[in-house]
């Protein structure tokens, strides 16, 4: 048992995977020097030739990883900030997501694209974005967004071992903020499973990333007020664990969906639609969403950033309304 931050969980898992599977390698900007968040610190020296600085070109980071994965390697690409993945959208959408489908499984791509996402770090418009909605609408790509260090470890390992392209989202605000005692033994988390982290009968909150922690904090506060929340840590966003999602909705009949991403067209819409179709008869209240406002991306100034970011207070306020409905 050791206490680990999120970034330590990631770094240690990368080191373990580089050790145990010589098909793995890391490709990304500045990764040899350790990367801007130091996720790859020390790895270039330990694994010579297997931690590779790419030129400043995101389409190539993804496209080259595709080629290497096709050849049988297990590339772990790093996109320095999720905000810069957009130039790689075409390679992910037109190529990676369809590699297996269009060859009926003759070819496949065991590759991971790791990238720091999310706000609350004074990153402004281009260092704070949530990108999951785009990739949750891309069958063929798996999207993972853990919240706790232990899950970062087990899901990153699972992502690397998965024969499909996995977008591995690391909430940058949590890198050093969230700590947890982590077992040496691999955790049980699997790709494609969500987890009911807390059980309560009054309403269900769905969240991932930083917002999962904010939701848990809100649930604590609410418990003191006699409102008992179920909190679902979604973990894998695509493909979604519909079973757990629906089970949790049916349990409480009231649901609150939380994400940092802007509201309209965000991932919460899909969750709400699923529940409104498949748990309709259990619903006791309108489906509520707490999300970023419909502006292009998070503004820089801390006052406006605070306005943008959902947090425990906004979540608790929405939950109170819902409980009272």
């Amino acid at each position, binding site marked *: 048992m050791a206490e680990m931050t999120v970034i330590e969980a990631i770094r240690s898992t990368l080191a373990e995977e580089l050790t145990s599977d010589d098909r793995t390698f890391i490709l990304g900007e500045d990764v040899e020097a350790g990367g801007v968040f130091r996720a790859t610190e020390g790895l270039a020296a330990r694994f010579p030739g297997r931690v*590779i600085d790419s*030129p400043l070109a995101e*389409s190539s980071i993804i496209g080259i990883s595709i*080629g290497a994965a096709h050849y049988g390697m297990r*590339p772990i690409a790093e996109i320095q900030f999720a905000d810069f993945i957009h*130039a790689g959208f075409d390679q992910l959408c037109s190529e990676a997501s369809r*590699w297996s489908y269009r060859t009926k499984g003759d070819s*496949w791509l065991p590759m991971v694209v790791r990238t720091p996402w999310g706000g609350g770090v004074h990153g402004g418009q281009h260092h704070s974005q949530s990108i999951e909605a785009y990739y949750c609408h891309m069958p063929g790509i798996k999207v993972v967004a853990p919240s706790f260090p232990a899950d970062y470890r087990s899901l990153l390992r699972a992502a690397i071992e998965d024969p499909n392209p996995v977008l591995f989202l690391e909430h940058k605000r949590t890198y050093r903020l969230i700590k947890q005692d982590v077992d040496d033994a691999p955790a049980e988390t699997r790709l494609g499973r969500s987890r009911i982290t807390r059980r309560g009968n009054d309403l269900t909150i769905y969240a991932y990333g930083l917002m999962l922690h904010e939701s848990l904090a809100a649930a604590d506060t609410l418990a003191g007020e006699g409102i008992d929340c179920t909190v679902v840590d979604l973990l894998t966003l695509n493909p979604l664990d519909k079973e757990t999602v629906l089970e949790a909705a049916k349990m409480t009949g009231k649901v609150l969906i939380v994400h940092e991403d802007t509201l309209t067209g965000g991932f919460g819409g899909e969750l709400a639609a699923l529940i409104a179709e498949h748990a309709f008869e259990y619903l006791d209240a309108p489906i509520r969403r707490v999300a970023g406002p419909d502006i292009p991306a998070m503004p820089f100034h801390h006052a406006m950033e605070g306005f943008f970011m959902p947090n425990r207070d906004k979540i608790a306020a929405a939950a109170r309304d819902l409980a009272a409905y």
Partner: protein
Amino acid sequence: MAAVRTRRDRSQTRIDDYLLSEAQLEEMYYHMLLARRLNERMLALNRQGRAPFVIAGAGQEAAQVGAAMALKKGIDYVAPYYRDLGVNLVFGMDAREAMLNLLAKRDDPNAFGRQMPSHWGNRERHVVTQSSVVATQLLHAVGIALAAKMRNDPIVVLASCGEGSTSRGDFHEALNFAGIHKLPVIFYIENNGYAITERTDKEMAIEHVADRARAYGIHGAVVDGMDAIRVYQTVAPAVAETRGGGGPYLIEAKCYRLWAHSSDDDDSRYRTKQELEEWARKDPIKLFRERVESDRIFPPEDLDEIEQRVDDEVKEAAQWAASQPDPAPEDALGFVYKEL
């Protein structure tokens, strides 16, 4: 590679002028001709309403077959583009499979009916699966070459595309990365003068795509893509050099798109009959036959016999493929994710 049924045992010894043996020259002719005849049959089927879409390589057979023959089948990789039927034939596709692909049959080994025709791919044969999006494959080729270099596998990757496709950012990013890491890639540009309706001067302000090689610190070469032998003689040494660690090549084969862009295109709105006729005189298959005939490599009967064999194969393949099963509607599902 599909076995080429030679009429008699051709000599394997290089003919000095050619740097190719009789056997290789026969293979060359066979594959070029097979590509052309298949394309002709495909277009005929399209005109009869029996094939919804054809995109062909007529005029580029020499560029394709000459280059592909310079590679080691079973070892090297190709990341071809939609016109590269010739490359695929050299790499082992046969006439039947080409017809399965055209008709999007259930058992088309490229895409099982899931993609448009001429979107190649076959893992075992080292043909990288491709989409319709042009130039993306150049990066895949670089990734394969990087991986092979990391593993010390002495392979070469040939990635091809049209000259218009070099306008895309991915072209730049691919050549830049390959140059930095001195990867064993041949970027092979089939410059057929058009990107659908746009002439080359709409795509670039320079005459030769190959002149871009310098921008990446890599080797460049231009070759007459209507001459299969010259193509082979240009690509083969480049393959050897890049295999030996000499770094990537950008090779431009100057050729011509003898047909419209695709079965959906009417090229009369943007080019003249006269231009077409001029180029038809340089037809790479015609030129090849003239040369080997006048150099008396094979007796004309042999060449006629190859023609006959190709015609038979194409006919048989078209009939056979037509009777093969179509995908079922629900074959649309499955393999979104690979299960291992």
